[in-house]
């Protein structure tokens, strides 16, 4: 009996080994990035990897941050991404709710039309969108960068699909009881959508954190520059060792990772992972 239990435990743990190896392989480039960010400049081009630096150079971080206005750039990115995340969470939920639970002529068509905006590549709408932003007087401003990113069609779709699954009976019952639409939204819909909201929040933050081409077009002053623009420009200056570029890359990775950790619990609600507790 005990031997069987031990064998059973062994098989479960041994199943972990190849999986862990696979996970490690996936994560290796991230480890490489981190390790390189602590190396001296010359190590970058020695082209043999020293996984644990023989000499640590944490000053890469300080140097990189002071050589270019990165604290400002990161702040700008943070403000823009937080706004975009908030905008998406609010408006995609509203629109998703409207499309899922309210039927009006052309609602299916409207969904298709909204989704079709995902199909056009960004590059060609850059100039006309810039013209719109320019007319609004939002060039070189936070609203200018965040504006066109505020609502993503994919987010609308995601919320619609999720809200669709909520039984309409609950909503009917609440309406009969006299609850207003916003109250219904707050007390019934939102709590059921935690997982979807977490997904929406994470990916809308990540996507706007990643943005390069759009800020490149709309920003021409350091005051509003976001970190990707700063990082590419930083790489253009030979006084900045590539290891410092890696340092900035590591710093850029942290906020998204942190957000992921914070939202993990809510994300898991979406998937029944109780099978893993074993």
């Amino acid at each position: 009996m005990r031997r069987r239990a031990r064998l059973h435990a062994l098989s479960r743990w041994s199943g972990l080994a190849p999986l862990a190896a696979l996970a490690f392989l996936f994560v290796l480039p991230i480890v490489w990035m981190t390790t390189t960010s602590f190396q001296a400049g010359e190590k970058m081009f020695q082209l043999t990897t020293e996984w644990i630096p023989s000499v640590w150079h944490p000053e890469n971080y300080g140097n990189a941050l002071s050589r270019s206005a990165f604290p400002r750039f990161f702040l700008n990115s943070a403000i823009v991404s937080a706004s975009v995340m908030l905008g998406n969470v609010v408006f995609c939920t509203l629109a998703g709710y409207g499309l899922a639970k309210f039927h009006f002529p052309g609602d299916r068509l409207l969904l298709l039309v909204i989704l079709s905006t995902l199909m056009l590549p960004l590059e060609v709408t850059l100039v006309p969108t810039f013209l719109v932003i320019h007319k609004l007087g939002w060039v070189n401003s936070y609203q200018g960068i965040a504006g066109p990113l505020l609502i993503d069609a994919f987010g609308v779709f995601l919320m619609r699909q999720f809200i669709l699954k909520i039984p309409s009976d609950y909503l009917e019952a609440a309406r009969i009881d006299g609850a207003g639409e916003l109250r219904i939204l707050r007390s019934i819909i939102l709590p059921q959508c935690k997982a979807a909201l977490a997904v929406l929040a994470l990916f809308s933050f990540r996507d706007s954190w990643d943005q390069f081409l759009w800020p490149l077009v709309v920003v021409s002053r350091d005051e509003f520059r976001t970190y990707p623009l700063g990082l590419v420009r930083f790489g253009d200056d030979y006084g900045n060792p590539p290891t410092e570029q890696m340092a900035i890359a590591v710093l850029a990775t942290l906020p998204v990772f942190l957000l992921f950790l914070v939202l993990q619990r809510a994300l898991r609600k979406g998937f029944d992972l109780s099978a893993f507790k074993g």
Partner: protein
Amino acid sequence: MAFVMPTILFFLVFKYGPMLWAMGLSFTTYDMMKPPRWVGLENYESILRDPIFREALANTLVYIAGSTIFITLVGLGLALAINTRGPGRRACMSAMFLTNIMPILAVCLVWRFLFHPHGLLNQFLGPLGFGRLDWLTDSALAMPAIILVTVWRFAPYFMVVFLAGLLTIPPEYYEAAEIDGANAVRRFRYLTLPLLMPVTFFVVVVAALLSARIFLMPFIITGGGPGNATRVLSMLIYETGFSYMKMGRAAAISVVLFAIVMVLTLAQMRLFMRSEEEYS
């Protein structure tokens, strides 16, 4: 409905306005300094005759196909591997998921170093018997390199999607199949796969959609090279519009890309419209 109004307004101003303006532009010649001048279908004729456009089109289709196939296969494989009982599964899943949320610019910069002839990837493959692989300078390897990074970045996301799908299959089905004498392979083929069809379809179409719009990866890692080996349509649009200042022509190329993506998305729409009759 009032709830949808703000979204509709937003899309009109920031998406549809620019989109229609751009489509109209495809029938003009516009270098951004003088007002656009109508030229009818000339841009379309011109790009169809252009060998570089044809090459970029082929590259894009190859890229979409290659990425989608491997993202699906690897994503499914990872999901199946994770979907076993035991400790540490959740940690492994979270670790792999990190590749999906790492900033794309960091991804591009890091992989550009990893792909060097004497870089990390070759350091791993060397002992396995591969000769020197010029990932970014050999035209036969450059596109596979970009596809490799794409799979690395997106497979974990779809692993989670597949996993959610796998978890909706009641375990009783598997038990029943086992009692009936089906082995693991048969169980997978006749039980798992069919039940995963909707999810697989979702994965395939969304992966294709994402690949069609890829820009930063080839832009930063290979610059479209060597020659035109990794020049995809989105890069061609950017170059034509912003380096050569031919916005009308760029708009025409983007309409072609739009058409390709529309076909892919319509397929997705049909699937979802059908399956959701069950819900609302």
